[in-house]
């Protein structure tokens, strides 16, 4: 956070500092985009899928953090909104032929039968529909006290799922949808992820963000300062739902096959776990945790099939990864509540502080390059 100094030198220093940070962010972004371009063109589909999943889970975690970490509302309906987004995008992008092939039990409703859209409009509509759903659900639900809100949103998420299972002619029921075009690539997924992070960060750093935090910390005091609780909670909720819908859409066009079971409470629990481990109140934490989660899940996949440890044949245990994750989560909640990042965010200023600390420690010895700048 910049300190307010009113001297001329102070002002000059401050404006210089700001643009330094902005330049650095710009460079980092360029490097990242460069990496995305390289990756998209050089990595095999398996690795690409993991990287795309990282982006999707980042969106899920960051949006959950917005509602829970920043506004203090435990909404457990994330899976439901993701389902809305996923199915919307799927139904809009599935080719006419694929639709016919999918809906063999009952024909798809005429309205959707001949629809075949491009990716961007489909994703945006998915987000909008999810946001509208969020608005409809949030308006009654957010008036409830914390505990009830959790169950109500859980219930809504389940209602959405039950509806999707039953709307045979719209969603194809439990059969699900196959053959969704694989439009999601690193540019789309990480593009939207970065937009999500940017928008959420800007909101959180603004007066509205402070209002949300005040609601989290003390609703009574917040109200006494003129803050309309319902309006602000709804703001966070709807914005969150919009991006979750987009995340769902990206997911659908990534994994190509979706059915209502993909969007069970299980998914919501995973998202809660990621956000808590990253640190409620830290967008950096949510992002890093989402990436770590997705990567480790893949890395550990082998332990679920039989493997050899030296000369011992170890039987695989299906489901072990999730057990490990849940144990870790519980451990974090009980012993290290702040999670990875607590409520701190990465900032260039922090990084330079670390550099100078290392520098001071190494001074006297030969000029060594700054040790491992990638600290997180």
């Amino acid at each position: 956070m910049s300190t307010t100094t009113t001297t001329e030198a102070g002002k000059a220093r401050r404006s210089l500092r700001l643009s330094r940070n902005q330049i650095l962010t710009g460079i980092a972004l360029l490097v990242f985009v460069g990496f995305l371009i390289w990756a998209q063109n050089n990595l095999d589909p398996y690795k690409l899928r993991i990287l795309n999943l990282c982006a999707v889970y980042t969106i899920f975690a960051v949006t959950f953090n917005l509602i829970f970490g920043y506004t203090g509302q435990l909404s457990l309906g994330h899976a439901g909104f993701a389902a809305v987004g996923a199915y919307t995008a799927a139904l809009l992008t599935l080719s006419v032929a694929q639709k016919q092939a999918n809906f063999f039990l009952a024909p798809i409703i005429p309205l959707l039968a001949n629809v075949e859209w491009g990716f961007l409009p489909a994703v945006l509509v998915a987000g909008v529909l999810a946001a509208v759903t969020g608005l409809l659900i949030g308006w009654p639900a957010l008036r409830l006290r914390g505990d009830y809100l959790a169950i109500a949103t859980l219930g809504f998420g389940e209602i959405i799922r039950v509806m999707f299972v039953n709307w045979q002619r719209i969603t194809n029921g439990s059969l699900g949808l196959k053959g969704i075009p694989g439009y999601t690539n690193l540019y789309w997924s990480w593009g939207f992820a970065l937009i999500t992070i940017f928008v959420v960060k800007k909101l959180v750093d603004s007066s509205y963000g402070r209002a949300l935090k005040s609601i989290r910390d003390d609703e009574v005091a917040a109200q006494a300062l003129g803050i309309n609780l319902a309006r602000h909670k709804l703001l966070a909720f709807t914005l969150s739902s919009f991006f979750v819908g987009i995340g769902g859409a990206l997911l659908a066009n990534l994994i190509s096959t979706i059915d209502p079971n993909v969007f069970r409470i299980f998914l919501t629990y995973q998202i809660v776990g990621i956000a808590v481990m990253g640190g409620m109140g830290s967008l950096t934490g949510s992002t890093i945790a989402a990436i770590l989660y997705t990567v480790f899940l893949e890395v550990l996949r082998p332990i679920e099939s039989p493997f050899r440890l030296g000369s011992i044949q170890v039987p695989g245990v299906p489901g072990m990864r999730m057990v490990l994750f849940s144990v870790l989560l519980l451990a974090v909640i009980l012993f290290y509540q702040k999670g990875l990042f607590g409520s701190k965010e990465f900032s260039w200023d922090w990084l330079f502080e670390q550099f100078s600390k290392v520098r001071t420690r190494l001074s006297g010895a030969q000029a060594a390059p700054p040790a491992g700048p990638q600290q997180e």
Partner: protein
Amino acid sequence: MSLLTLENVVKRFGGLVAVNNFSTQLQAGELCALIGPNGSGKTTIFNLISGIYEPTEGKITFDEQDVTGKRPDLIAGLGIARTFQNIRLFRGLDVLGNVLVGHHLRLKSDPFSAMLGLPGYSREEHTMREEGMELLDALNLAHLAHEDPTSLPYGQQRKLEIARALATKPRLLLLDEPAAGMIRAESQELMDFIQHILNTVDMTIFLIEHQMRVVKSICPRLIVIDHGEIIAEGEPAAIQNDPRVIEAYLGVGDYATG
């Protein structure tokens, strides 16, 4: 026309009558104190005015508008701000952040301009921060702007709460035991500051205290309540010698010696 009017306000919690037939008027620019022994209903009256509780009977009018039972945030928007007996600061925000929350209700930019970082919003944010620092400065808290509010000593936390309430630019300020937990020098400083506010801006202050000493020198009018009812009203000198008041406070040495 008085700024704040309470007419026959009654508040019952089940069988318990917390406030009984409370009527009073506050004129603009007035400094008035509501005093009484613990549990006499003082905070309940503040809660009724600020909208946390809805009166069981009676009417509350502010600036010629009926505010009986309105939502607290709407009442704050009309110009009534308050502090709390048990300090309610926002732990997740720093000192300046707490004050800035008070500015929020005067924000003109919509969420979208904030989300997109539009220049209109940036300018407002900049102005808010300047005003916030000025407020902190006036209360000698500027050097603590980025501290964790819970790490502050009690007296400073109270001052911060007042700064936060002032940030809403209210016309009526309700201070619930603002001097509680302060040493003499601090409470003197606070009372001076309250006088300063009254001299510089258009403000009405309604104060809850249970220590006579704190209010008798600066408040021209005192309302004494006991068991939710007014038992005396008037100037400090008259109140101090009122037998009913003395009876209500019997045993509380602090009050008796003034």
